[in-house]
């Protein structure tokens, strides 16, 4: 018996991409602006979300999906303490969130009251880059102590971004971080990428980020 060749030509992530499209439509129907927030562990993802909430809580409701690899609610608890709705998704050890986990998270949030959805992905610079969640924005929080070589070592995540935040700028005087070298790598991978240097500790740089974000949120609301 000879083998018959059957053409398929289907993307390996097609199931995830379909689910991401469903999320995208669901979020747009609610006129919600959404962010897939990625970073390495310890870059300041939760601090960045909390600082953003602090600047916007008078104007917008911000819902948060917290992706964690372990069943600890440390991050989600902090968001809830800030007065905003949060849900924790435990990936059971998986290295990233996928679109179906996000869909489960959306089921548990009061979507009608939320203006901005922030999805805090699992701390990892490799895997989250490959999975579309259906958000408007892919944002990476890089941080000064991680080192200026990260774009060179983890190019894939930088290539797919819409926004880059460089956190912990208050530490620039204390660590060997060459901003020009870092930014040259970013520029090669993602020319003209919108970048906000900030410090979550001092609040430095947040005005520019918040103004930019407000414009995006309003554009989705009036769409």
């Amino acid at each position, binding site marked *: *018996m000879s*083998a*018959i*060749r*059957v*053409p*398929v*030509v*289907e*993307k*390996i*992530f*097609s*199931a*995830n991409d379909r689910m991401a499209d469903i999320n995208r439509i669901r979020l747009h129907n609610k006129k919600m602006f959404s962010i897939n927030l990625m970073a390495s562990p310890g870059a300041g993802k939760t601090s960045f979300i909390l600082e953003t909430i602090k600047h916007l809580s008078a104007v917008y409701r911000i819902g948060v999906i917290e992706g964690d690899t372990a069943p600890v609610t440390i991050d989600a608890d902090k968001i809830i303490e800030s007065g905003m709705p949060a849900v924790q998704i435990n990936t059971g050890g*998986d*290295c*990233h969130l*996928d679109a179906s986990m996000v869909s489960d998270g959306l089921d548990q949030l009061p979507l009608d009251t939320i203006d901005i959805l922030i999805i805090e992905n699992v701390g990892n610079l*490799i*895997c989250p880059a*490959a999975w579309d969640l259906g958000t408007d924005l892919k944002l990476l929080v890089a941080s000064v102590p991680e080192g200026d070589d990260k*774009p*060179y070592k983890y*190019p*894939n995540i930088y*290539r797919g971004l819409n926004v880059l935040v460089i956190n912990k700028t208050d530490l620039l005087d204390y660590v060997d971080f060459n901003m020009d070298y870092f930014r*040259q*790598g970013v*520029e*090669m*991978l993602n*020319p003209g990428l919108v970048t906000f240097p900030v410090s979550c500790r001092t609040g430095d740089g947040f005005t520019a980020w918040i103004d930019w974000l407000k414009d995006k949120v309003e554009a989705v609301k009036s769409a």
Partner: protein
Amino acid sequence: MHELSVTENILAIASKHAQESGATRVTAINLVIGQLSSIVDDSVQFYWDMISENTICSGSVLHFNRIPATFRCNDCKHEYQLDTLLSPCPSCGSLRNEIIAGEEFFLDSIEIEK
């Protein structure tokens, strides 16, 4: 990376197409994977042998067609192949380039018996 999830996706797609074609058995899976996808072939093969057991794909072989990364220089339009991102154009030294191949990540075809 996340080879187990990738392998599960491959099995789902291959099984669906095998059933639709009335296959009794799948003998081979032909994958097209760009050089820039951080997937380890051996690791996918390892998971494949485990998770395809007792399915229509049991005993089938994975073929990886690796597509080299190809860049085009935005300044001098030279096209070149490299294994890494972030390398200057070998012709003019420009750092401005775009990827024209090497990001493929799909299941091209399956080979079946009826």
